[in-house]
């Protein structure tokens, strides 16, 4: 059984302020486990829930040298009432790395609402990865989000998340390697071996003892801890998982609520910026920043490295809006772009920009041809990876959106190497992060987390590329 980080800390006698003390790193066993779990880095997964419209996120500005992307885009997306077309003039083309489709040479632009992300792009901190999807795509939110979370396009029935499979191998039942800023455990973290903290706001994370009988709290805590341990050991799967959740909650309630006040006291300027943005994405990322600040400050028992936040509302079947401020999709892009820009600046100010990677994804893109005033469900779309060490720029091809090449209005997924519009399997993006950020050896990624498909190599994922280049 893998030994957990908390156990190392206990055994090596590390105390607050000395999380990475010499005694800890002195043991070869510890070094090995650290290397396998990305050491002192952080990974944040940001899920755009509902199916983000990819071609109104990264949009062709022109046709480029060898394509027809802009003309095809204008044929599919209407202007005028109910129209959602982004005009070439509205699109953002930030300075910095060329924002050009590698296949057609088309100039690309960001949705005007994404100006916050555009500012990071200009600094070379954002990789845009186009055409991410998987074979035989599902248009169901539920099926497709599960496929992305579990990295299981073949619906082989894997019930663990891609990150969960990794965490389960390295952490124990009441460790808390990951925090999700939401009410439920995200599918990416699914597994049953270790604990995931779900928290909406840290300041509300105190365990509710009876404040007017404070002397009783220790007895209540002891009883609940013993009851949790008993449940953990019961052998009954459901009760055992409830026991694990109870135990990790009791432990986290000892240390996590204080992170809120510390952050507010010691980082008031950033606290204020998030607050002024006032959006749920900004507030959620602020909670992540509070935890990171706690880890960096050496708060005992706070050692989360993996985070998940989500922003909902992308299922724009109607009233999607175009490039003008105030439209539904504009507002979503504005919210996420601003929140990410602030979060990155916060991390840079803390000195951890180079320890940070944020992965932005959605369960599918949307139909190329718009409907009345929005778009139905679609297939592959862009992902973003951002962070201090990210090699900014464009990776992967823009999908072919010519009406003649669509199937039921959607782009066709292809792994055919001779196809100039060859798609990106999203698992290559995950794999690149695992290998180049989480330090998981290439063979281990393949064997333990992201198995290849069997089938026609022109369609299925039969050759991995965990070296996509967006991370050093």
């Amino acid at each position, binding site marked *: 059984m893998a030994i957990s980080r908390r156990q190392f800390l206990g055994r090596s006698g590390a105390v607050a302020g000395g999380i990475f003390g010499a005694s800890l790193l002195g043991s070869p066993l510890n070094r090995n486990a650290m290397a396998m779990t990305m050491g002192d880095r952080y990974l944040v997964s940001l899920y755009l829930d509902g199916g983000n419209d990819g071609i109104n996120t990264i949009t062709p500005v022109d046709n480029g040298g060898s394509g027809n992307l802009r003309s095809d885009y204008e044929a599919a997306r209407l202007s005028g009432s109910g129209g959602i077309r982004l005009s070439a003039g509205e699109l953002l083309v930030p300075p910095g790395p060329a924002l050009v489709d590698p296949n057609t040479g088309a100039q690309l632009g960001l949705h005007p609402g994404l100006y916050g992300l555009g500012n990071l792009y200009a600094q070379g901190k954002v990789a845009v990865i186009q055409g991410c999807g998987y074979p035989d795509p*599902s*248009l*169901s*939110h*539920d*099926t497709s989000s599960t496929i992305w979370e579990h990295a299981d396009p073949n*619906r082989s029935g894997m019930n663990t998340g891609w990150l969960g499979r990794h965490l389960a191998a390295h952490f124990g039942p009441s460790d808390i390697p990951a925090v999700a800023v939401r*009410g*439920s*455990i995200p599918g990416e973290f699914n597994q049953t071996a270790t*604990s*995931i*903290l*779900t*928290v*909406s706001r840290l300041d*509300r*994370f105190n*365990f*509710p*003892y*009876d404040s*007017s*009988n404070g*002397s*009783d709290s220790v*007895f*209540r805590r*002891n*009883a*609940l801890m*013993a*009851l*949790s341990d*008993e*449940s953990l050991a*019961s*052998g*009954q*799967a*459901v*009760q055992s*998982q*409830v*026991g694990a*959740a*109870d135990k*990790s*909650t009791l432990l*986290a*309630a000892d240390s996590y609520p204080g992170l809120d006040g510390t952050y507010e006291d010691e980082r008031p300027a950033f606290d204020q910026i998030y607050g002024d943005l006032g959006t749920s994405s900004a507030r959620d990322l602020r909670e992540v920043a509070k935890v990171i600040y706690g880890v960096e400050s050496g708060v005992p028992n706070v050692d989360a490295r993996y985070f998940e936040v989500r922003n909902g509302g992308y299922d724009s*079947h*109607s009233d999607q809006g175009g490039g003008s401020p105030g439209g539904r999709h504009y507002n979503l892009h504005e919210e996420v772009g601003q929140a990410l820009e602030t979060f990155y600046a916060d991390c840079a100010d803390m000195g951890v920009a180079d320890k940070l990677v944020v992965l932005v994804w959605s369960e599918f893109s949307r139909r190329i041809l*718009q*409907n*009345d*005033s929005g778009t*139905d*469900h679609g297939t592959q779309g862009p992902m973003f990876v951002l962070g201090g060490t990210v090699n900014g720029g464009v990776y992967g091809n823009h999908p072919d959106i010519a009406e003649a090449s669509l199937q*039921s209005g959607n782009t066709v997924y292809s792994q055919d190497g001779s196809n100039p519009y060859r798609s990106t399997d999203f698992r290559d993006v995950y794999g690149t992060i695992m290998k180049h950020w989480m330090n998981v050896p290439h063979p281990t990624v393949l064997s333990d987390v992201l198995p290849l498909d069997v089938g026609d190599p022109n369609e299925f994922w039969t050759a991995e590329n965990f070296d996509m280049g967006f991370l050093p």
Partner: protein
Amino acid sequence: MGDENTALSEADARHLLRRTGFGAKPKEVDKMLSKYPTRGEAADKLLKFKPARFRPGGKDMRARRVSWFKYMLKGKKGLQEKMVLFLHDHFATNNETVRDDLQMANQNRLLRRNCIGDFKQLVKEINLDPAMMDFLDTVRNRKEQPNENYPRELLELFTCGVTDFAGNNNYDQEDIVQIARAFSGWRLGNKDEPFLDENRHDFMSNFPERGPKVIFATTGGFGGGGRAFTTLGEGPTEIEEVIDILFEHTDSDGKNTIARRITRRLLAYFGHGGYATPTPTTIAAVDALVTESGFDANWNLGGLVRAILVSDAFYETAAPAPNGAGTARSVKWPIDYSVTSMRLLGMKVKGKDGRVEGGTGQRIVDHLEDMGQELFDPPSVFGWDWENSWITSRTVLSRAILARDLTVARGRGATSFRPGKLMSLELTDPTEIVDAVTGVLGVTDRISPTERSILIDYLTDEGASASIDLQDEDVVERKLAGLFAVVMQSPAYQLH
């Protein structure tokens, strides 16, 4: 093998009452055992009700949530409400999108009136339910640009499911496109009455190139050509015909697709999460229930529920502690946790805004939201995730907060915690007190000897006091209230 003639054990009776209502009070268990001693008699008794016309009232959505909560807390028709909750989750519609509390309340009444009735008829009524028509864009579906939102969820969630038990697809994208054409043009009038706007409906004469409306050309057991759904003529009857065809859909095992799926979901709901996946055990249990109830022909939900309530599959979670690897358990929904707790404690919420007196003084609907179940606002059309998904560190805390708040509500009225009304305060022996408290909360036979001794340790300040004086108000407030809180916060109490 048990059946309707199988005698109920005490654990069975407690389980049956708990799952078909909100908690089992000891006298309710006794009455069940003496008057309705077999599974069949008990099920018939529980199903002998005429669905109420109740519609949650109030000036806004919050008030209507409180209204529904209070109705459940009265506990007159537990099974009716358990079915409404199931259907609310199944036909999940959220007010965050709909933004019309009257439409939402009307849908709630629609679900209640049909909760043990004809499921096929209910789906037809859901087609034209104003809240649903708005939620899934039926009102925005027009011939030039059909909107696929409702047709997709109709197939995926309300009826067939994406795949059958063998993992084969039940339909394809073309089926959704065709059904979207059938639903085009439906709108709502000034008084929310649905009507077909023929100018927006896709008649074949509009788009001859789209061809005749045909579904299930490749699945469903309809033969090579699929099934056309305009045989009754084009126009308003098409959407009913679509439902008639869906309910004839057979899966790759040749079984009725909808009957199997609804039965599986309902069994997982009343039983446990093991039935959420189509293992061989699940499939055998589901097929037996469909056969027994005739659900694939009569579509009667009440009959299906009866078949479930007399089955061995249902009684799997009745087994007393200790729990081992072989026992089945299921996680209480937040609404079940809160209504059950308040009912067993004999407590009410205060006022139209449904305040829980004590502790944070939060409104019950805010407690519920924190626990992950905001009534009338399931997170999406998929409804809520069940079982262990209910339990996260955030919801563990939220459940614990409600338990704490309830047990520190001081005062004399029905919004207060009054343990003297629930048990004898003459008791002094710690073991007897623990047994009395777990008895009130219905978990005496659900906790192991070790758990029982942990509770005794708690009550005695870890052995410091051999005898407990419940005549001392300080002891009641500190230790007895604490004992109730700890039991309600313990893992075992979260489970059915």
